[in-house]
């Protein structure tokens, strides 16, 4: 079942398919290992904090915690390899089109500027995104850069003697700087930006489940990716508001879909 391209196959009831099963598994591997790595790694960086010392004692000392950190790192590396293999098989073996939607371009800079203009009130023209917004592209490539830093630096820190055999000695303290600063950057970005756009945004709250189900509700797709939504609807010969067809059944959906669940009892 297609999850890319302008195809009527992507429509599943009131949903539009967006992620295939491999992407969903990769995300699950990524976020579960990320959480373990963060809660085991940060106390090592902030070792002077009393909370860090308490947390270390919970795990039975830094030796145990470091072992868990290494174990979760292997899971994250596996998800990285999985993604590269997945891309290679899709493009080379299955001859699927190269996912050029994910490549950054000048349009992303224009979108960024327009988004800020709209959000700051200098324009009433909301940005219209295609399959991937500039935010999603940045997230994707930032994870790529971050993985190279974190995995590269982490492997050097895991095997400092072996690293010094093939690389100059200063690579070890440099790896520590990169690994530790990049970790704070990654955790900060996830907590601030990713949590907002995946959970806390008023249109999304409490959670956008599409990364687990693979499917996005039509009205949300229209809101977030209107350009691609229009292509899909055109391919399926459906009107643009097909996703909103059942909306009159819900109480005043156009006002604020956010609070819809809370209004269900009123209706009954």
């Amino acid at each position, binding site marked *: 079942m297609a999850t890319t391209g302008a195809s009527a196959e992507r429509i599943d009831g009131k949903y539009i398919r967006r992620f295939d099963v491999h992407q969903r598994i990769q995300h699950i591997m990524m976020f*579960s290992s990320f959480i373990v790595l963060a809660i085991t790694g940060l106390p*090592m960086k902030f070792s002077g904090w009393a909370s860090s010392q308490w947390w270390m004692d919970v795990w*039975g000392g830094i030796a*145990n915690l470091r072992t868990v950190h290494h174990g979760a790192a292997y899971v994250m590396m596996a998800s990285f390899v999985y993604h590269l293999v997945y891309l290679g098989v899709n493009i080379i073996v299955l001859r699927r089109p190269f996912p050029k939607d994910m490549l950054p371009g000048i349009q992303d800079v224009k979108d960024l500027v327009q988004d800020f203009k709209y959000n700051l009130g200098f324009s009433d023209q909301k940005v219209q995104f295609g399959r991937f917004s500039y*935010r999603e592209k940045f997230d994707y490539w930032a994870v790529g850069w971050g993985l190279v830093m974190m995995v590269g630096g982490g492997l050097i820190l895991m095997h400092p003697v072996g690293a010094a055999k093939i690389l100059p000695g*200063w690579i*070890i*303290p*440099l790896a520590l700087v990169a690994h530790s600063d990049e970790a704070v950057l990654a955790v900060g970005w996830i907590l601030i930006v990713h949590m907002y756009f995946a959970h806390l945004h008023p249109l999304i709250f409490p959670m956008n489940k599409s990364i687990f189900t693979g499917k996005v509700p039509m009205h949300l797709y*229209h809101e977030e990716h209107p350009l691609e939504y229009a292509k899909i609807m055109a391919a399926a010969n459906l009107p643009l508001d097909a996703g909103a067809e059942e909306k009159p059944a819900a109480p005043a959906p156009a006002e604020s879909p956010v609070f819809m669940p809370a209004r269900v009892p009123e209706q009954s």
Partner: protein
Amino acid sequence: MLKPVRKAGLALPVACAAIACVLAVVGFFAWYHTVPASADTGTSPSTTAVTDTTPVTDLTGAPVIAVTTTTTTPEQAPAIPIDPSAPHAYVDENNCLSCHGNHDAGGVMTKQRPDGSMVELYVDPAQLRFSIHRFTDCTTCHGAKPHEADSPFTKLSQAQKCGTCHKYEYTQYISSVHGRPQVEGNSDPATCTDCHSATGSAHNIERVLDPNSSAYPKNVAKTCGKCHDDPKLMNKYGIVEKVYDSYMNSFHGKAINLSDDNTGLQQLNMATCINCHGSHNIAAVTDPDAPVAGMENLAKTCEQCHPGAGTRFASGFLGHKGAELDHIPQVYWGEKFFYVLTRATLAGGVLLVITPFGRWGVDKLRGGKKRGKRHSKTHDQAGEPAPENDTSQTPEREE
């Protein structure tokens, strides 16, 4: 009205399986680690620091607690006042503590040092109970006629007194950078009790492997820091680095700081000050024979714990200095780069979040007309950006 997801497809079982896999891998590593942990503790790098020469087992392997002393035999000794119910008792064969352990007599029991300062002759029995020398009688150190002895001890004479039993340690100490100045009359450097006693008193020296000991791995850095973190004292000798802070922020310092108190044996694998600089035989870093002087010596020191390290590994060690332009500049520039990158990116992220949230809030405050209008765009034609209200250029604009 959102409908519940009708069928999650493969995602739910796959999600459960993936999380189970992560937990299994993590759990395996955690379990795998705990098995050899106890075996690894035999490779303690700090065995030279153990000063306790009391045999703990006899030939049959049964534990022995030696209560004999060097000055008296059991036949000569009066009844030893040991309370059998007390876990930590001590020997006081000549009842010295009847006067010296009486705190009410503290005011009169003082003696003047040659330099004019006073020394208290009170000995706290509570501290004595935890001394490694609690079964050694007072007269062993203070002489058979202590009231006629030349006292009190200086740093040098105290080291000499310890050396009557701990001969090897004394030989090392007296030729070390801490010991040599004592012979020359400089009493600034540390003597035995400065490192081995938490209070500086010889009466409560604890065994090195006792977690409360000031010479226990976790406490070594603090003990050295008593002098080496004192800027006034260190400036006098031209030692400028912040050795304590830099150690505690290093791999070695963090490892020992974060190791579990309940599994103290883990700490024996972790490097403290003495593992690189030496303990009784400690040498100045300016001494060409010091274990940290020059890359060749430093590499050998690293290899005690990092087999096959070599000079290239050692050359990346920042030591107690931060990375500077003249000291591993690659790390200096790396720190600058990541400092800017981290803060700039996170600041951008904050902007990326507060601006749409702010717009949503402003729209909300302006009431239903505006809000309804914005959401009605969901039903616009073709999803193309249809320019509307082009005259609106300011956020204060009211509709």
